């Protein structure tokens, strides 16, 4: 009982500390660091949406960047070409991206495992092809520029990076809480049930297709939210944002950090996006390093950095708790799910 209280106290202390630091960032670090943090946040939302689907549903989606981009393009269009006033572009962006997810979801929901990965890869490419070739709307390869971040309650987030930081932080925490709440809820439990044994769930009377569909749409909402902030901060958008490399990067970040934890998504994104900028100043072999890193993580730490750390943490502090991570791990534990070991 005391151990439990001690654990909870430490956890609360840690959370407050981290929260305090996060809020203090604009004052204790440089503008450069703030900019990097903002990037980690919006890409982090993209990664979280992938992590959510992969972790809870065991479905690796290579099209989350599509929803990120669809919402981004909508915001870009409404802001730069039509000049709609503030809350309209992001709301429209979210709505259209979720609508797209609802449509694609119908195609995607009946398919699982490797087929799901391949179908989402192809659908992601379909969205990319549209972004490239529908030039009258998307301006093709050049993309849309000239987008300015909004003025919220009289504060210009365009002029002040700090303002933008907090503006995004609120929604970022909201998105993370949303997904965390879903994970903790009975809905999350049902999703993990589908992940572990779909036939059993179906037999028990659960509407498996509906569950998968709902999860897919929820995840797209978070990705779309990331896309809104991406567009406002970067000031431009082009087909690269929805390309295959963009989707693969999101997957890399998710795996690096750990597919079973939202914190892992953020950590993975932070590592990837920071290495991105730092490494390419030192060496040209950035892709090679990322490929090797990816391979090592997938082979030796498939739970990702955070997952492995958490396992270690739990094992050290609470030997009796260590069954949880394995059970929560789903398809990414090393245990094979079918006896096919030759």
């Amino acid at each position, binding site marked *: 009982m005391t151990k439990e209280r001690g654990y909870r106290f430490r956890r609360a202390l840690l959370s407050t500390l981290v929260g305090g630091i996060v809020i203090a960032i604009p004052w204790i670090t440089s503008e450069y660091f703030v900019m990097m943090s903002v990037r980690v946040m919006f890409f982090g939302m993209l990664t979280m949406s992938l992590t959510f689907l992969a972790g809870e549903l065991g479905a690796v989606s290579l099209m989350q960047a599509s929803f990120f981009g669809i919402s981004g393009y909508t915001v870009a269009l409404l802001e730069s070409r039509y000049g709609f006033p503030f809350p309209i572009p992001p709301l429209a962006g979210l709505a259209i991206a979720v609508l797209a997810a609802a449509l694609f979801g119908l195609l995607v929901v009946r398919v699982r495992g490797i087929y799901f990965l391949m179908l989402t890869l192809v659908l992601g490419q379909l969205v990319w092809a549209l972004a490239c070739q529908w030039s009258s709307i998307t301006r093709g390869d050049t993309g849309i520029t000239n987008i300015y971040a909004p003025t919220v309650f009289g504060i210009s987030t365009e002029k002040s990076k700090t303002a933008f930081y907090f503006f995004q932080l609120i929604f970022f925490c909201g998105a993370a809480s949303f997904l965390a709440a879903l994970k903790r809820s009975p809905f999350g439990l049902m999703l993990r049930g589908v992940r572990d044994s779909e036939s059993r769930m179906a037999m028990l009377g659960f509407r498996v297709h509906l569950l998968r569909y709902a999860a897919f749409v929820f995840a797209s909402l978070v990705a779309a939210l990331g896309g809104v902030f991406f567009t406002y901060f970067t000031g431009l958008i082009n087909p690269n944002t929805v390309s295959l490399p963009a989707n693969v990067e999101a*997957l890399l970040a998710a795996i690096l950090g750990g597919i079973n934890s939202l914190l892992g998504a953020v950590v993975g994104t932070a590592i990837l996006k920071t290495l991105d900028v730092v490494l390419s100043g030192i060496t040209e*072999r950035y*892709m090679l390093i990322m490929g090797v890193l990816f391979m090592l993580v997938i*082979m030796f730490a498939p739970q990702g950095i955070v997952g492995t750390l958490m396992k270690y943490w739990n094992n050290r502090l609470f030997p009796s708790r260590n069954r949880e991570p394995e059970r929560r791990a789903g398809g990414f534990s*090393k245990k*094979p799910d079918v006896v096919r070991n030759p």
Partner: protein
Amino acid sequence: MSTLIVMSLLNGLTLGALLFITASGLTLSFSLMRVVNLTHGAFYMAGGFIGLSVLKFSGSWLLAMLAGGVVTAALAFIEERFLLRWARGNDLIETLISLSVAIIVGDLVLVVWGGYPRTISIPEALSGAVSIPLIHTIYPVYRIFTVGLALVIIGALWVFLKKTRLGVTIRAGVDNFEMVSALGINVKRLFSFVFTLSGFLAGVSGVVGGTFLVLVVGEDWRILTLTLIVIIIGGMGSLGGTIVGALITGLIHSFSTAFIPQFSLFVLFLPVAIVLSIRPRGLFGKER
């Protein structure tokens, strides 16, 4: 106008031939091992560049093609033996490992051969064009050769799978894996062999394709996407399905670039999306 249609037909056919050669390896490895080898595109590109270098040294296109295939086969063997086998049983992890190898190989190719686009010269014997009697146009000999090559490979694979013991074992493994291992057949070696063969086919297709298309960084992902389209449409695990998928993909590509080039990309991905959602196994895929 009708000339254009006939030409598009021929173009689709010949592109389909190349796509078949490329996809055949992927189908083989998938049907037996249930792993979508995402390294396949990188093998295509690596095989092509290796062939390019061998051609520069030896002057023999045939040698270049074989060399491209052999070296890629060796890479595939290493990948299977040391990386994929380690994660055997977990399809998702194996697929992701193959993705990481693809990224690594892609960058290594950039290091060795650089970022400039290269192309493999058509061998003398296959260069030039012939006149097609009925439609009064000329068509490149080399592209007709690709169709011939594809037919040869189809024939060889057919004979191999139907008539040789190894081939029969592989087909048995595809149909009923547990039984095959229960029968005491060395499945490890079987997997190695199939994967190596698929690598060989990928490398060969890289040289064949690099001769009438182009070899450059980024081609690995383009080819991988096209190959996946072929396999998804035709059905994974079925050689006949791969032939059909390759033809359909080739024809769609050539007709759309001829008549509606500004939507050609989109039109290529649409049928895939439809097929996968209605019949996830592909048109001829096997039920598993």
